[in-house]
């Protein structure tokens, strides 16, 4: 979240999404932005959660170990339930994807932080990896039979020139909808934070009555923070489960 300077007349809701070079001169010379820095931090946090969580390897887990175990088992059962028996192969991929998105969403809620999942480039990159993987998996398992996916069995042959483009567009719209959903949720949440935070500053600058009135947007931001925590988990979950559903389609072709 960006911090608005007191007395500034306009609301700069989108300035928080601008990338800046991080890590001083070194970062500037290789265009290393704060988004990349947050990605590295997220990766390090995920790895240390698993490493330090599982280090005690206790039979009765402590809090951190319980968290690591729940994370592992939750995603594992999601893969197994959604994809089927073959889902085990894709577990590392889905686990990585889920936690990369989740930590991106959650880290973005910290003050002075940056939400890398609020950039369509990042979310579309992740979705493109998903769609390329599902297509490669489907081609590898089913070969040329994969292309029957675009023409449902039993449809009249005369409708083929209409059905096939529609089905191809529908297939290609998957990564777009996957990336737009995550990106739009994150941007909308952070813009709302910024707008209500600006209201606080503007009202507080308007005198004694304004300071009292500023409690309103402050309360809204507190509620919004809880809501955004929910959205952070939900969107990471949706991203992972849709990946599982697409992988299920790729493995089973319907």
């Amino acid at each position: 979240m960006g911090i608005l300077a007191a007395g500034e007349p306009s609301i700069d809701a989108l300035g928080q999404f601008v990338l800046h070079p991080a890590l001083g001169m070194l970062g500037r010379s290789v265009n290393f932005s704060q988004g990349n820095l947050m990605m590295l931090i997220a990766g390090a946090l995920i790895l240390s959660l698993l490493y330090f969580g599982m280090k005690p390897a206790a039979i009765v887990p402590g809090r951190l170990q319980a968290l690591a175990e729940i994370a592992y088992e939750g995603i594992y059962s999601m893969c197994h339930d959604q994809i089927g028996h073959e889902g085990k192969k894709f577990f590392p991929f889905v686990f990585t994807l889920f936690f990369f998105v989740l930590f991106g969403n959650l880290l973005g809620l910290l003050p002075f932080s940056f939400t890398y999942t609020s950039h369509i480039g990042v979310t579309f990159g992740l979705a493109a990896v998903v769609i390329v993987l599902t297509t490669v998996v489907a081609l590898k398992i089913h070969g040329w039979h994969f292309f029957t996916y675009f023409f449902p069995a039993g449809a009249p042959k005369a409708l083929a020139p209409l059905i096939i483009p529609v089905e191809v567009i529908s297939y290609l719209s998957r990564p777009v909808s996957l990336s737009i959903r995550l990106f739009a949720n994150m941007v909308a949440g952070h813009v709302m934070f910024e707008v209500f935070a600006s209201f606080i500053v503007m009202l507080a600058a308007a005198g004694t009555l304004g300071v009292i009135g500023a409690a309103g947007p402050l309360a809204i931001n507190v509620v919004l923070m809880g809501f955004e925590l929910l959205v952070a988990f939900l969107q990471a979950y949706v991203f992972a489960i849709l990946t599982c559903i697409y992988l299920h389609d790729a493995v089973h072709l319907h």
Partner: protein
Amino acid sequence: MNERRTGEDSSFESRLAAARKKQGLDPAPVAQEVNGKQISSMGVGLRVGVEMLSALVVGLGLGWYLDSWLHTKPLLLIVFVLMGGAAGIANVWRLLGPKPPKPD
């Protein structure tokens, strides 16, 4: 004896359920089943919107690209935007329509 017993039990269960409903102890089911998981109605609405929009965007992009490649402006753009809309409807139908019986 045994039969009377179960009959009593089921009537007790139904009376308990009715009483709980009257007192508002059981929350009304707001979630609905989509793709085998529970989503709230707001979630369904958002998903439907995103599905339709993304298919339209892909249709627009494909039409635009093919037009500039084949120099057929604006014919293919028009055709593919319409097909994108159709694909959006197909996406929504696949999301909310009746499910085909599982093959396995």
